[in-house]
């Protein structure tokens, strides 16, 4: 916990203060991490989001048909995706795929003395390794979430169009009408907060590895479990704040 707070503080220093002392972050490594963390996760995100969109539409059809309220299927798909399913499920995918990879990579660097070597070369590991991953995650998770929302809505449309007798225009209009911008923004705020949690937990797990290859394996597992828990608890808290307390 102490390590985790220290990591966050030093991250804040390198992102908010250091640029004003002339130490800018390099763009190259950030883009490389954006590809590793985000772009490579798009196929999985797309598949997940599409399945979720389809499932939501089917469940909605099942429940709403009995009430004679099929016309609200797009509303339900849209709101559930934007507010909850989109940010949470895409965070789950990114934790499993990119968070674990970051923890394993940094952990391997730790046990093979690479981190120590960086320090001895007067290169700060937080600045050199964590900052690019952090910025990449902060950009890519919200971006993936928006992307996933689109695909999920597409999944809902597929069900409505081919299994129920919606026409495309009707689905789109209904979907757009149901959601307001706050639904989108609340999801985006969530995914920004999740991005912070995921990347700091993964980096911290990697940087504090001890005990060789076995330690790296343990740290990777721990990082996934911790990130999932933190993310889900945070989701409940944010939903409470956004839609309950207000």
């Amino acid at each position, binding site marked *: 916990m102490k390590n985790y707070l220290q990591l966050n503080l030093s991250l804040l220093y390198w992102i908010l203060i250091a640029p004003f002392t002339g130490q800018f972050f390099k763009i190259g490594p950030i883009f490389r991490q954006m590809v590793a963390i985000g772009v490579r996760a798009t196929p999985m995100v797309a598949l997940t989001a599409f399945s979720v969109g389809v499932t939501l539409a089917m469940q909605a059809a099942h429940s709403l048909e009995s009430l004679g309220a099929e016309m609200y299927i797009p509303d339900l798909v849209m709101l559930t995706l934007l507010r909850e399913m989109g940010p949470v499920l895409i965070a789950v995918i990114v934790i499993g795929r990119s968070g674990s990879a970051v923890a394993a*990579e940094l952990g*391997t*660097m730790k046990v*093979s*003395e*690479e981190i*120590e*070597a*960086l*320090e*001895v*070369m*007067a*290169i*700060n590991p937080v600045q*050199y390794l964590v900052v690019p991953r952090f910025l990449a995650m902060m950009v890519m998770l919200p971006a993936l979430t928006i992307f996933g929302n689109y695909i999920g809505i597409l999944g809902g449309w597929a069900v409505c169009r081919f299994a129920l007798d919606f026409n495309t225009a009707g689905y789109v209009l209904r979907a757009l009408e149901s959601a307001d911008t706050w639904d989108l923004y609340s999801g985006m705020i969530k995914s920004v907060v999740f991005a912070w949690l995921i990347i700091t937990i993964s980096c911290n797990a990697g940087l504090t590895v001890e005990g060789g290859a076995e330690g790296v394996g343990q740290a990777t597992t721990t990082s996934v479990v911790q990130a999932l828990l933190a993310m889900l608890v945070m989701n409940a808290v944010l939903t409470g704040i956004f839609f309950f307390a207000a």
Partner: protein
Amino acid sequence: MNANAENVIEVTNLVRKFGDRTVLDEISFNVHRGETVVIMGGSGCGKSTLLRHMIGAMKPTSGIVKLFGEEITMMKERELERVRLRFGMLFQSGALLASQTVGENVALPLLQHTDKSVDEIEEIVKQKLQMVGLTGFEDLKPDEISGGMKKRVGLARALALDPELLFSDEPTSGLDPIMTAVVDELTLKLTHGTHMTAVVVSHDMTSAFRIATRMIMLGHGGIVAQGTPDEIRNSPNPEVQQFIHGEADGPVPLNLSQEEHEGHQQVKPRPFIAARDRFHRKTA
């Protein structure tokens, strides 16, 4: 400046414990500018640990380490970075960044700490790799080269900023005799030509006697002997003689296995380990 300015490294009463095991016990020595000090001693006696304390990667249990006249044991990370820019370190494992090519590894300190252009850096990288006999390997990844080559890349990286002080942990282990000579020549050239100071950990006695201006032998947590190569060569200490001549039979405790202590287990005698063989004959 006072006379102390001559001392590039001052180690005073350095103690390091891991748990209740004391690995370094009250070690004190100085290294003057331009010297090449070779640290030797049996495997596991704490040579790498001693180096780690000298570069500020580990904090001592007690004692003082000064580099360039400044105490580093109490320093904050930020101050330490300033001192670290003045020395290079070759790790026992090489410690190359696995995700970057050989060329990028050597370029790393230059990219981070100088304002040189990409072309200039490329030129320097080429030149440093040439010094260690690795021209043309720039684009390979560390896991595509051999252990001895990694060592030499590590050395090239340690020398990238032309440091005034070089630490190297077994620079020649894993190298063939010719490459060992090349690396030794390089160390000699740098210490003579640019007055670089070097602290080298080595098991390789030929290489050690070739480069050392002073030798320190560690053992039992302390300094067993120190002196010029000639003094070490003619040392009356039987432990030193056993070490530099590489004999299995002698006063250095071997701790080869638990059986010595248990005494009842029947093991196949291994004729090439004279000390143990004799032990078993005695107890049989």
